[in-house]
């Protein structure tokens, strides 16, 4: 006997059989012998014997008992892969057939074979597995009546209808609908093979073919629902897939938590406590965005309690302008390479800033040196950016669009032309700017600013308490904290609190020591978190080897070039401050406690430091009270604004 073993294929050994996924041709006609053998292996028991008969060998899994439990039919999805092509062929009775006619309202298992095939893990495997699955399905006559097996030969010269009829005999069992056939001519055959990805090579020497075995499961709407190759083809799995398709009811979907209405949606990837070994994840599914559009313009007409009246630093936008601006805000296509939207750094469920980064990054990962400011109440600010270099939102929006390290667009015209060419924006611009519907530098600015202006948030526990509407709204600790805020701690010296309204900012710029420290201090070794509760010390030199030169930051000086303005930054408002970590212009303080500790310690004394930043002598309970106060500044409509944001589609690059 000639020893026949599978061996790895090489250029020097073109006729050796190949492993899984490879082409196989062993030459000659052993195949038909194997086919008979395969047909003779009646059921899993025998297949199992075969397994034991040759412990060192591994036949294709389809010949063996499944070594694991098959899936429960109906518990999983078989999403449509693509349309199954039509084609005509002649069946083993000589009758002309169309595939689509056969597919209609049936579940079809389609294989490509040729009867002279001599690779046990090729066509014979397919026929063997199909016959086993057919026998299983036949036990349920009602099911069997909806299932059909079709085997098409790509060897019409030898596989004539008569030859196929002889070949078909052992497979034709009661209750099994199995059609064998072959294409009528070479063109029809090529079309069929091409349509089903059957990459067939003819072995010139032996009259056999080399092909990658593929079997298809096709539904009643002529859609391919699964595709099997040698190591993936097994009767138990095939039968489970057939039953899954047959089950009328859609697979029971695992319910997705939809988010509790009313609750403030926090960050989807909450890392609170990550520094401790006891940290547990509280991750939320990306699909769990409870979207609900809100009438944002109402807040502009009737600002929430606690906010200044008529302080809108610009015109009152229309609802159509707000809607357009919201759409633009979430559109990643507004950046040069389509990767970054406004919302990438001003993330709605992260306080319209980014809780996951000290300072954001722009396109291609470029470094942005200052923390992304929260956009709550941004429309009420008389100056913008940490260095107050801009005066109006309508103008400000162009800075990130054009900054090389943010959205990186090459020009104003480039942005406008790109948006004008997106069909979905045409009606939106027409509705927002009926007199001038073609996007311009001005209208784009108005639209984006319109949405941002609508992000008003007030009516916090503090406001309800202070107005006397609800004496219990703010805890005793927070009330004590408020006294410290306006008293011993001196916070309200810069974070102003009016008699009837409060923005918690003087809109001025100050040196708090943070900027000075960052520019002037010698880098120290870092404690780097490498896993929950696990930290390692890293030397500055290690970090420097893989780093760009960190950008310096001189604050307001960069605008005025006045040495007195070195390291001065704009006082941020404190509404929703509990949601907008990390803090300071560089994001260097991760928590409110760290911020309070910074001020309690007197900052980092330097020539320009504001004299109000001085050691405060606050004890632990005072610091806790102060934090409780800051945590009472969260607006009642944050959830509304976040859910409204979720309702906006995220614009992503498309082919159209």
């Amino acid at each position, binding site marked *: *006997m000639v020893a026949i073993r599978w061996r*790895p294929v090489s250029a020097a050994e073109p006729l050796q059989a190949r492993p899984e996924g490879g082409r196989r041709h062993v*030459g000659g006609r052993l195949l038909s012998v194997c086919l008979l053998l395969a047909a003779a292996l009646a059921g899993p028991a025998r297949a199992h014997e075969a397994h034991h008969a040759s412990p060192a060998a591994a036949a294709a899994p389809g010949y063996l008992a499944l070594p694991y439990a098959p899936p429960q039919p109906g518990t999983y999805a078989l999403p449509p892969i693509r349309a199954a092509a039509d084609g005509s062929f002649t069946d083993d009775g000589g009758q002309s057939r169309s595939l689509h006619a056969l597919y209609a309202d049936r579940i079809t298992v389609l294989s490509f074979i040729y009867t002279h095939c001599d690779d046990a893990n090729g066509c014979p495997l397919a026929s063997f597995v199909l016959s086993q699955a057919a026998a299983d399905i036949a036990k349920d006559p009602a099911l069997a009546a909806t299932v059909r097996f079709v085997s098409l030969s790509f060897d019409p010269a030898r596989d004539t209808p008569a030859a196929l009829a002889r070949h078909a005999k052992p497979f034709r069992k009661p209750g099994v609908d199995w059609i064998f056939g072959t294409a009528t001519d070479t063109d029809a055959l090529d079309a069929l093979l091409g349509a089903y990805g059957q990459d067939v090579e003819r072995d010139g020497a032996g009259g056999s073919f080399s092909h990658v075995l593929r079997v298809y499961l096709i539904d009643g709407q002529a859609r391919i629902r699964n595709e099997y190759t040698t*190591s993936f083809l097994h009767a138990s*799995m095939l039968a489970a897939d057939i039953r899954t398709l047959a089950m009328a009811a859609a697979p029971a979907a695992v319910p997705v938590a939809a988010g509790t209405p009313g609750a403030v949606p926090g960050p989807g990837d909450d890392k609170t406590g990550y520094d401790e070994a006891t940290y547990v994840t509280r991750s939320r599914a990306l699909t769990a965005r409870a979207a609900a559009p809100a009438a944002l313009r109402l807040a502009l007409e009737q600002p929430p309690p606690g906010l200044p009246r008529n302080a809108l630093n610009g015109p009152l936008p229309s609802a159509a302008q707000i809607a357009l601006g919201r759409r633009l805000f979430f559109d990643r296509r507004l950046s040069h390479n389509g990767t970054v939207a406004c919302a990438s750094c001003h993330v709605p469920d*992260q306080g319209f800033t980014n809780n996951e980064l000290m300072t954001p990054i722009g396109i291609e990962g470029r470094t942005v040196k200052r923390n992304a400011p929260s956009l709550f109440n941004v429309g009420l600010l008389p100056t913008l950016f940490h260095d107050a270099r801009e005066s109006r939102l309508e103008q400000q929006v162009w800075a990130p669009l054009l900054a090389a390290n943010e959205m990186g667009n090459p020009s104003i015209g480039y942005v406008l032309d790109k948006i004008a060419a997106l069909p979905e924006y045409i009606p939106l611009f027409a509705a927002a700017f009926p007199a001038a519907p073609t996007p311009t530098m001005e209208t784009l600015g108005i639209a984006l600013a319109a949405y941002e202006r609508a992000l008003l948030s007030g009516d916090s526990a503090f406001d309800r308490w202070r107005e006397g509407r609800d004496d219990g709204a703010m805890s005793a600790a927070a009330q004590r904290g408020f006294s410290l805020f306006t008293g011993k701690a001196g916070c309200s010296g810069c974070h102003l609190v009016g008699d009837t309204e409060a923005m918690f900012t003087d809109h001025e710029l100050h040196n708090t020591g943070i900027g000075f420290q960052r520019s002037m201090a010698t880098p120290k070794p870092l404690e780097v978190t490498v*896993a929950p509760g696990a930290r390692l010390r890293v030397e500055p030199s290690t970090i420097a080897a893989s780093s*760009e030169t960190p950008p310096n930051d001189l604050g307001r000086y960069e605008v005025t070039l006045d040495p007195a303005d070195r390291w001065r930054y704009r006082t941020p408002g404190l509404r929703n401050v509990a949601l907008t970590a990390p803090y300071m212009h560089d994001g260097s303080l991760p928590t409110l406690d760290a911020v309070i500790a910074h001020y309690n310690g007197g900052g980092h004394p330097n020539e320009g430091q504001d004299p109000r930043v001085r050691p405060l002598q606050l004890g632990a309970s005072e610091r806790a009270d102060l934090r409780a106060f800051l945590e009472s500044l969260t607006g009642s409509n944050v959830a509304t604004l976040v859910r409204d944001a979720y309702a906006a589609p995220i614009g992503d*690059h498309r082919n159209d």
Partner: protein
Amino acid sequence: MSHQTSSQRSALFAIAIGLAITPLSQADETCNSPYMKRLTTQEDFMYIWTLGVSGVGDEQDKLVTVDTNPASKSYGKVIHSLSVGGRNEAHHSGYSDDRRTLWAGGLDTSNIFVFDVASDPAKPTLKTTITDFVAKTGGIVGPHSFYALPGRMLITGLSNNQDHGGRTGMAEYTNDGEYITTHWMPTDDNLQGATKTGQFADGYGYDIRALPRLNVMVSSSFTGWNNYMMDLGKMMADGEAMKRFGNTVTLWDLHTRKPLKVFDVPGAPLEVRCAWGETHDYCFTTTALTSKIWLIHRDGNGEWQAKEVADIGDPAKIPLPVDISIAADDSRLWVNTWNDGMTRLYDITDPHAPKEIYSKHIGEQVNMVSQSWDGKRVYFTSSLLGNWDKKQGPAGDLQYFKAYHWDGKELKEAFAVDFVAEKLGLAHQMTLNARSMYAGRQSPVPPQAGAAGGGDTLAASLGR
């Protein structure tokens, strides 16, 4: 044939089983999907998916082809380079199951470039570019691993378009490039039926491998767009960013694509490599930040477990293990550590107790390692991520592709290509290929008369 004797029948049975003899077990070549057409002889080419870098050559991503056949006149030389436009953060690539196309992803733009490597394996051409991956998948950003399943491609993601963090999913595409479906990674609020075995179910993703024999897949977890795109030094100094690394390995049902178990594997488990042996019910992964080898294995009770089995270098120094490569016989595991530029070879004969048996300094930094199926040739590239790579180093040791011979005792350099001097960019993922993979292909035609049953000694031996 219809007149066989029973002894003939027995002989046939034996041959039939003989025909079916193994290599269903299957190696970079050793990291490829077992569903894939495999190269087990001398490779002719290495395709190197290369990041464009500002100031070098044409500054854009490209697929570089290097001649790796010692018998060739152009051995060790770049013989082809195909620029694709833009910097996409070129990262990993993988063949379709029929090895006719090579899919290469961009972690930044989420563009996927599908190259035709079959028509002329020496000169790949760009067949199509998938530009709507994010929109089609429902928001997956950063296509990472391209893992061949029958007739389709399973593509793992690293991030999402909502917050550019680490929560993500996987998508399936047809070999023709059509989107099929999305599978989200299990999260605490939607474990999708999986068991959270420990403290973490972060929903992060990275790599995936399958053990078809056991109907399972194993996926790992890295970090989102914010971090993998960021300057490395900036990231390490950012305490918030450092909290956004994956700490999980997920076990999946291969057939139903449903998650079964979520394991705690802290410190960013990256590449997953599964054993090939028929009785080797395990996969390896290594954690980038905590520098450990982990074993994902099926225990004596048939239960899947995750277990830390070895340190890599001195974890306190953060050597940063990156790519790994398993030998085809499951006896050895190459482990690269990016920070110190070392490759380390582990004896994994006992998968529960890997032992380092060899190490060598490859360059200023080293990321990917690929070996030939027989393990005699081992290849290395330098680049990890565009903004993480080192900026300074000896000429030729910063961004390179290096080829070595492994004789069982030591690595001997065969040749090296300096990707900066050659004006190419940052060398990342390698895939091996050979002309022999496509030999004999022709249009399907009916056989010539008389060819049927054409004389083979096997048929003769059967006494027909």
